[in-house]
């Protein structure tokens, strides 16, 4: 018996379905989360929300609090960013997925965010995992960049034990010796996780590869591998983005990608 009891497939033989404002992920339901790496301006968020919605996205992402490798890099608009996400969500009708960095803003996230994301760098911040779990809100947990699948499953156990039943796992690439891509996107994690847990699994081809040219092929591969959804960075002006512009796709590329995803999903059905 695995150490992670609540996450284990054995404890819940059927696939779990996470439902947020009428949108479902898991158990055959495929959902796409799209939006810019970081929230920059009101108009940027409103425009991108309108574009990704038109292309068929189900959720709006955008970072208000950004974990950056360098303390001097743009670290997000903070609560102002959350405010802009709320406006874009209200106008587009798309629920919000955004990352929490510490318990400092737990109340704000509990009130305003539809799916609370715990990023790769916080995957084993066990205090945060427990506190977010206790909010009993949907959570998106990203795999740590040097974490094994077992460690990911043990981490999600903290959230489930905290009380939340709606957790989505996300493969976003791991640290290997390969430098041609930002990370090595471990797509084999999708079928491995499917076997070990009942929780929905989505893939982040933007962080997973670090290059916009690789986003589409890896998104299609993830869909073919049985992922329950995708999280993709979309920016109206990738070259002017304040964060991760190199891996962001324009709304045009995103719209084309969505059409292809649809065809892959039909092909493997």
């Amino acid at each position, binding site marked *: 018996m695995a150490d992670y009891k609540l996450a284990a497939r054995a404890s819940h033989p059927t696939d779990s379905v996470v439902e947020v404002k009428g949108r479902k992920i898991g158990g055959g339901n495929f959902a796409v989360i799209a939006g810019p790496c970081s929230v920059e301006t009101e108009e940027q968020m409103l*425009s991108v929300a309108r*574009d990704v919605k*038109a292309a068929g996205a189900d959720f709006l992402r955008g970072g208000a609090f950004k974990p950056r490798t360098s303390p001097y890099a743009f670290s997000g608009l903070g609560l102002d960013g959350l405010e802009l996400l709320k*406006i874009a969500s209200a106008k587009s009708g798309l629920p919000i997925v955004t990352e929490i960095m510490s318990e400092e803003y737990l109340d704000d996230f509990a009130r305003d965010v539809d799916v609370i994301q715990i990023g790769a760098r916080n995957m084993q911040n066990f205090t945060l995992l427990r506190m977010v779990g206790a909010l009993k809100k949907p959570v998106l947990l990203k795999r740590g960049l040097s974490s094994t699948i077992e460690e990911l499953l043990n981490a999600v156990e903290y959230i489930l034990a905290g009380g939340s039943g709606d957790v989505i796992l996300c493969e976003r690439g791991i640290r290997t010796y390969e430098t041609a891509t930002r990370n090595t996107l471990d797509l084999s994690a999708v079928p491995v996780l499917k076997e070990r847990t009942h929780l929905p699994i989505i893939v982040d081809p933007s962080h997973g590869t670090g290059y916009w*040219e690789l986003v589409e092929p890896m998104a299609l591969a993830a869909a073919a591998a049985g992922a329950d959804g995708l999280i993709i960075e979309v920016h109206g*002006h*990738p*070259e*002017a983005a304040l964060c991760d512009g190199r891996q962001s796709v324009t709304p*045009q590329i995103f719209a084309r990608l969505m059409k292809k995803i649809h065809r892959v999903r039909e092909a493997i059905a």
Partner: protein
Amino acid sequence: MTNPKEELAKLRERLDKVTADLTLAFNERQRISSEIAVVKANGNIAITDDAREQFVVDSSVALADADNKANTVTFVRGLIALSKIRQNEKLGLLNALEFAPPRARIDGKIAYQGIAGAWSEQAAHTLFPDSELTEREYFADVFDAVLDGGAAYGVVPLENSRAGAVGDVYDLLRRNAVYIVGQVWLDITQCLVGISGTQLSEVREVFSHEQGLSQCNRFLRNKNWELTAVSNTAVAAKMVADKDNRKLAAIASRRAAELFGLEVLAPDIADDKGNKTRFIVIAKNPEYDEHSDTVTVTFSTNHYSGALVSVLQAFMLAGINLKRIESRPGAVPNNYRFFVDMEDANILNPSTRDALIQAAMQCEYFEILGCYSTAEQNKI
């Protein structure tokens, strides 16, 4: 001696030649724009590039005659806008501006802010005489009611003929996915109301909304009455009725007097007899037809000199008058949003649509808030 007709004909011949050359050059420019659109789409490059646009404008201005430089800016900005329209068309992206199809008027409650007897209630009753009204404490609650289905429509004030914009309502329009589907201008006729039979000489204290008191300055002057501001004119009338005291009076509407069993002690006491407030109807879906005559949009411009002019020019070229322009601060500092009412415009009209697309191409963000009729309703 020169014959003016001959001279004009010669000049026109030269002019026509230039126009033909310009047209052919324009065709070529648009064809290149189509090719650029494909390269940008495949290359993950945004259609709009502010720095590149400025470069094109500056290079053209450098070529222009000294007395033609300003017009060259207008001309080249126009060309760039047309190029962006072509690129968006080529990529099938104008759909993002597609206004949702109209919905037929529905039955249901009408939400307004305040209590019965408030001016908002009177506006709601004027617009929907046969519907059940439902009151809400704040403007935001009226928007929520429309969005969560608690009401079919909401009626909120947008501007006053004296005081100008109702900023809170503009901000709520910016933040919420509602549409403007109708409007009415309501005459704000303030009356002094009190317990039946009260003589003006008996009155000692007058209650009203702050605005109600200030609108009747001249009437109140030298009366030596104590003036007390309360949250709403209807609330003031209700207080007087509840206290049943002849020393008290309120400045409120005739309708409030009727509702609370009070008597109009002095009618039409406002300093400005033409005081009006414009109320809009908000709904979850747009409603428009061939009788609609106003389009309200909101937009923010890019940050270069003349950015707003190039947006307004799109309306000018379509012959559309802008009845009202309001600028409001955005959700975070140093960010502004314009709200514009286009007169004699209708989304179903191709020239209005072209103007909207042209204007949108010049904006950082552009959104249509409503297409509706301003036809005068019956007033109470």
